[in-house]
């Protein structure tokens, strides 16, 4: 656990340095204007309040206060999207991969797995465009809330789709390895169902796969939030980029928020792998 926490702290520190460095450097290079640290002070103020868990005073800078108040909602939207996409991907990939590995000569199951991998390899922008175009052409008439829910579901599908292919391939190969284990061969020969044992044995490799794709997932979430107008951290970052002048403190806060989200997801996945695999715990 400690190496994981240490690695997470290093990653967070690097992310802060990279984002602040990129945002800060162009302001100072080749500029005749006096050096301004206002945005950095505002960003630091927000973080200090987040760490202490208190609301800023009424006399604080308005934009900072507003961002601080919006932060929980932004974080909730992004987290919901990422968790939803992971769950969608797992719900599809786990049974497909397991079924294909358990019946390798079943042509239909093999074809289904290959189709999933091929579909998953399509870019998110293509799928998002096709889904939105299709939903409009079908003239699906929904109430405002239902339409928002529909768009959120589409967004989750598009983001989860990118994970599905990789997870399906991993689950398939991991299941084949597990089925070769002596104890599972014994279980099978005895006429018992192996699904429960296989599912338990799949937790470490699936968790590792999710942990390794976390950064990719967060990057995809940024794009999907923008495509489907979901007001999360990624959407806010793009709004800040488009503003003139750009809102540097918002970029720093939202980018770090995304990195923290990614670290939390990766930590949960790694923790689940540790709990499920006794060899790693030892």
């Amino acid at each position: 656990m400690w190496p994981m926490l240490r690695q997470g702290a290093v990653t967070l520190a690097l992310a802060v340095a990279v984002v602040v460095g990129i945002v800060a450097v162009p302001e100072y290079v080749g500029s005749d204007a006096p050096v301004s640290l206002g945005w950095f002070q505002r960003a630091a103020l927000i973080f200090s309040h987040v760490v202490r868990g208190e609301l800023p005073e009424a006399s604080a800078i308005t934009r900072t206060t507003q961002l601080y108040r919006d932060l929980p909602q932004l974080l909730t939207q992004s987290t919901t999207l990422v968790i939803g996409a992971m769950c969608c991907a797992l719900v599809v990939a786990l049974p497909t991969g397991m079924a294909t590995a358990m019946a390798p000569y079943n042509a239909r199951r093999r074809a289904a797995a290959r189709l999933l991998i091929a579909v998953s390899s399509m870019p998110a922008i293509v799928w998002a465009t096709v889904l939105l175009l299709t939903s409009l052409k079908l003239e699906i008439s929904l109430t405002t809330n239902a339409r928002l829910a529909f768009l959120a579901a589409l967004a989750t599908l598009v983001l989860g789709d990118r994970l599905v292919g990789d997870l399906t391939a991993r689950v398939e190969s991991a299941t084949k390895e597990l089925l070769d284990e002596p104890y599972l061969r014994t279980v099978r020969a005895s006429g018992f169902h192996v699904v429960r044992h296989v599912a338990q044995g799949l937790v470490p490799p699936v968790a590792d796969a999710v942990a390794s794709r976390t950064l990719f997932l967060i990057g995809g979430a940024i794009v999907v939030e923008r495509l489907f107008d979901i007001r999360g951290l990624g959407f806010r970052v793009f709004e800040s980029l488009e503003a003139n002048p750009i809102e540097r403190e918002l970029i720093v806060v939202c980018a770090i928020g995304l990195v923290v989200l990614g670290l939390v997801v990766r930590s949960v996945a790694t923790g689940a792998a540790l709990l499920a695999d006794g060899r790693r715990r030892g």
Partner: protein
Amino acid sequence: MTPPTAATRAVGGSRSLIAGVVLFVALTLVNLLAYASEPSASDSYLKFAPSHIALLRSVLGGERVREYLETPASSFGSAFGGASGEADTAVTTDAPVYTTRPSPVARVGALYRYAPATRQLLKDFRLEMRDQADESTPAWLTVDPATGTVTGTPDRAGTFEVSLIGSLEDGRAAVQRFTLWSDTRFLLFGTDDDGRDIARGLFHAARSTVIPAAVAVIIAVGLGVLLGAVSGYSGGVAAQSLGGLTAVVQSVPGLLLIALAGRLSEWNLLVMMAAVGLVMLPETASGVRELVERFRRRDFVEAARELGMRDSVILWNEIIWHNGRQFIASRTCQAYTFAVLTEVTLSFLGLTDSLTPSVGRVLLVGRENEFRATMMVPALAYLLVVISCFALLERGLVLRWSRRR
């Protein structure tokens, strides 16, 4: 199904390679021609004109015909929705009288002809036509009162509202109303909201794909192979530096870094492509480093050293070329695909220079105009062609250089 043999794998690889090379050369030529030619000017009176090709029109949409019946008390003005006072119109959509639809496009100087077929007998056909630009009534289109055949040769480009009206036995008027675009140009995909030819716009937008992506590939693969080879062969400080660079770049989502770099450079395409290359560099360098570390202690490397071969020759010729070219080819194709997709995604999200033609901008305009299929489908098709090109190249090169042939 028989497993693939070395022979079938070789044939499959050759076909993929040839197809990939042909596509790549074609795309590069298109890109170069796009740089050489200038974007066309706007024709504002031809907004959202459909394709001249009927098949594309039926697939992408663009034929909008309205049919309805009018009672005898209605005036002619009601055909255009104007105030008639005593008009009593009824729209019937479940049993239209006309069984044919007119073509909505005509070429200036070429004969336009439409012969309607009807379910019921119609007589005393008449035509009403109005130019959308100046509300005038052109006279180049006429109708045969007996058969209802519409003919005419457009004398100028424009968008016209046409109503073909035939009388039923019971005195009611069966109206078929449609928009007719006449143009001097051949419109492959039609026009956009500014009247610009979509096909031509897509052609110019292609300049932001293959050639600028080469900048990202040179950084990601060229620099990545160099760094990875040196750090893998030398080890020590070089390897640690590479590890540090990888940790730094992979601490933040890549797309965020690229978007930041783009915005801070005022959406300079080359800077963004350089950022894409930088994001991909650690992965390439790490892969090459592992490859070199795996091979540098092999017997043939020791033998080459004993024979007096220089380290640089051993590294680049014996290790990288003979054992790593498959990986490098694969990474090159992946880097190209990633660079193109990133540029299209960022421009689709509106995060690039609006004056620079881009495939993503075409998609964005299509999205902003109620997801017009005429704009989005061709742009998506071009994007899929680009992705397929590099996928075929990758497969062909990997199979061709695979040791298990």
